């Protein structure tokens, strides 16, 4: 098996182990103290580890790409977004694992999470520009405009019913604002994600495709996690919380694999 193949297997196994206590809980098992401890430690540790790995890999990619390479700026901005995200997760880790307290919402973590979105959005938009500079047949501007309009329309159609109960549920102003802001920001991120997916799929079978498939899947799962978080919190469906954690863990694993894959591609 190749080095890249081994890394794929290692990531798959790590993600599987990390989500298992949450999946078992959803299935009605692992509900005791051991299961709770496994979810607390494994969940927090895996999320933070994957995000730190994503940030470190993106930073190394940006440092390795030469000046003038249009992907350098993309990876620098994406690294900044991942660093902010990892900082937010580190705050949650401190509350839950170090202090053994339920993490408040909102908290300092949300400052970092919210700050990461414009960075990640900018990075993805810059990536579209970088792809265009390759001179390869990646589709027309008209196609990209069509994708933008379609995804934006689908985001409104899917987002409105999901966000309606969030808006209607009484909650402190900042909490409600964040519960609406996260899914809205995610849906905004989905627009460049789908444009990039349409471009990257033309590279299927190659290492470039694997990098971007990882990253884009990660962003999509993050969006699903945030929409579920807002919706289930508003509907008081706390028993489905493990599903949200599964989405976040898989999302961060995919982001880390994508970023590490890009670093491996440069070596």
């Amino acid at each position, binding site marked *: 098996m190749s080095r890249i193949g081994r890394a794929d297997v290692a990531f798959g196994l790590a993600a599987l182990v990390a989500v298992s206590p949450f999946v078992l809980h959803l299935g009605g098992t692992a509900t005791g103290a051991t299961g709770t401890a496994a979810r607390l430690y494994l969940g927090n540790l895996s999320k933070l580890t994957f995000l730190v790995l994503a940030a470190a890999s993106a930073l190394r990619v940006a440092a*390795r*790409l*030469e000046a003038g*390479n*249009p*992907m350098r700026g993309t990876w620098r901005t994406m690294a900044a977004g991942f660093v902010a995200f990892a900082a937010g997760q580190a705050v949650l880790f401190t509350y839950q694992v170090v202090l053994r307290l339920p993490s408040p919402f909102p908290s300092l973590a949300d400052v970092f999470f919210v700050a990461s979105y414009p960075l990640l959005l900018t990075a993805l938009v810059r990536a579209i520009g*970088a*792809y265009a*500079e*390759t*001179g*390869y*047949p990646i589709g027309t501007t008209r196609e990209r405009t069509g994708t933008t309009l379609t995804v934006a329309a689908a985001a409104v159609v899917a987002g409105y019913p999901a966000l309606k109960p969030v808006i209607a549920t009484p909650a402190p102003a900042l909490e409600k604002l964040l519960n609406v802001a996260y899914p809205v920001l995610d849906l905004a991120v989905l627009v460049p994600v789908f444009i990039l997916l349409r471009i990257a799929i*033309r*590279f*299927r*079978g*190659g*290492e*470039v*495709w694997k990098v971007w498939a990882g990253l884009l899947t990660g962003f999509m799962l993050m969006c699903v996690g945030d929409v579920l978080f807002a919706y289930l919190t508003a509907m008081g469906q706390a028993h489905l919380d493990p599903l949200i954690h599964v989405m976040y863990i898989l999302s961060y694993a995919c982001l880390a694999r994508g970023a590490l894959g890009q670093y491996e*591609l*440069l*070596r």
Partner: protein
Amino acid sequence: MPKTKESVDTIVAVVSPYLGETMARAAARAHCEKLGIAIDGAEITRDQLDALVKKVAQGLNIFVGREKAAVVVSQIHAAIAGRAS
């Protein structure tokens, strides 16, 4: 002089692990068109071949960096030389 189709096939074979075969072939064809190289033409001149490899490498450079792209270019030239000999 090397054959056009064989040269394009060699370029595609070397860059496919990075770009995937579909994009590698589409990119090579697109650049041939832009450079006025007839894909079904019998032979490709050295200048045309260098220009084609340079164009494909410029795009690859964005994904794999300058150093790795330079290695790939060397591999393409070595493969084409190997086929010609």
